[in-house]
């Protein structure tokens, strides 16, 4: 078993700076989403809003939730969960997108 039973800490030296930086990026992305929403590109607006939401979530997951520093197992777990949701929505729409 390669996972240390007593592993308490994730990274070695915690710093405040990186999180403040990520926060600023998140605020900026929020601004972009709102600005783009004002311009009506139809479906592109939706796609943009969702893409930005995904990027924001990725930042929260990776940095605030320390997924970046966790072992590969955790990242695999998140992948599995997201895969389940993706499969569900894709197959669900096989009913609704077609006649």
């Amino acid at each position: 078993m390669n996972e240390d039973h007593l592993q308490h800490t994730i990274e070695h030296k915690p710093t405040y700076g990186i999180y403040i930086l990520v926060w600023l990026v998140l605020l900026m992305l929020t601004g972009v989403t709102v600005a783009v929403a004002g311009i009506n590109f139809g479906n592109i607006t939706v796609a943009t809003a969702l893409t930005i939401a995904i990027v924001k979530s990725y930042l929260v997951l990776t940095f605030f939730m320390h997924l970046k520093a966790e072992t590969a197992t955790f990242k695999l777990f998140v992948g599995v969960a997201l895969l389940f949701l993706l499969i569900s929505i894709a197959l669900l729409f096989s009913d609704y997108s077609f006649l």
Partner: protein
Amino acid sequence: MHDKEQSVSYLDYKGKHSGIFAWILSTDHKRIGLLYLMASLLFFAVGVTFGFLMRLELIAPGRTIMDAQTYNSLFTLHGIIMIFLFVIPGLPAVFGNFFLPILIGAKDVAFPRLNLLSWWLYVLGALLAVISVFLPGGPADTGWTFYIPYSIRSTTNVMPALIAAFILGFSSILTGLNFIVTIHRMRAPGMTFFKMPLFAWSLYATAWVQILATPIIGITLLLVTVERMFGVGLFDPALGGDPVLYQHLFWIYSHPAVYIMILPAMGVVTEIIPVFSHRTIFGYKFIAFSSCAIALFGSMVWAHHMFTVGMSETAQVIFSLLTFLVAIPSAIKVFNWVATLYKGSISTDAPLLYALGFIFLFSIGGFTGLIQGALSVNMHIHDTSFIVAHFHYVMFGGTGFGIFAAMHYWFPKMFGKMYNMKTAKVGFWTLFVGFNTLYFPMFVMGWLGMPRRYFDYLPEFQIYHFISTIGSWILIVGLIIMFTNFIKALRSKTSYTNINPWSGETLEWTVPNKPPLENFEVIPTITAGPYEYKDNDEILTKEDN
């Protein structure tokens, strides 16, 4: 030296609580397993009783012993009780709890207190379901599937039933969560994933389904509750809601739920077959991966329950194809089991009989599942008793017999007593005959058009119903024989001290019967895989040469 405290069995040791609190506040995975066993067997008995009454009603056309409303409530409750209180928790919560830590060389699960909470949630949900029967309004009559719009309109106690199911779902989720962390973090030194017993693998795959699929039904039932309380309109067709969307959401959980039911049972069979063939399991990795494949593919086939509701043709074809594909990993398991038995030194004890019974009955269930997966055929047999037969073959002939197999296999280890083997075999054959007499006619009459969930029927179906009801009586006799045998053994004064009666090679056969609190005096270091029957392999090599 040998620690005196450690040799006290888990049944006898005295912790900080006494009396009944020593059990219902215990965080020992073995005691929790027994708590689940007692509760689930109690509800199994209730479910069987309801089934018995339903069959009694159906022995002749027209009203026999009850009115239609009562019949509707009976089949609703029979479904809810059997599915949520017996078959889903059955193997993971009873035998998973009791044996998973021992199988991987651990002292307990990762979160023992969470484990206890799981049991309490189970009891709470079960009580709420029972209470719903007696509250004014009467028990729910929607079927366990709670289809819209009737579940919004019915004036019976649908809400308590919904909330009960929600709470039970939580119990299931927490058990799955506990098992995943246990398997990842608490295996004994040297036990890699691929040296784990296959029952542990099956619990692992099951746990993922429990965690990911159950919340979907959680939210769905919550939405129906909110619909009934506030009229939000999310499913109500009168307000623009889509009843078919409800069905989609319901089955996105409830189909994977059947894999929660069957995977651990397959795991039990995989434990028993090598032991009673005295041969190592054929295709260990195939079986391990097939469990994961079943979990994955199983979450992609849900709409095969909905072929007749008006989905797009595209969806129908896709789901039909995926349904055929999901049969493949199950078939792989059957091939591996048969290959293990081949040229083995077979001991025909009760555990093996039940395991073989599983293979036979599950195969029939599985094949009929494929038949149902064919779109054109499905149009004719959907909502007939063909479907009822199919799912009883897989859920009862499959998981049910898997539970009975586990009981017979692990009984001496859990209780330090031994049952009468002859009686056990008589019990098995009675059950087997009763089971087929009860359910096989349903295939025939379903094919001929007998609808399911119908209180009354045309005279041409009577002969099948009659045979089926007789079958239910034989089945119940078989159950009585089986359980009487166990009770007699439990009450016997003779201690059974053989810690490895079946010559098993997994870790539970190295610890005393009625294992002590922390299972192992010393956590073992693992060097070999499970099921290493070296002598037999040598024999085989000599034969080939």
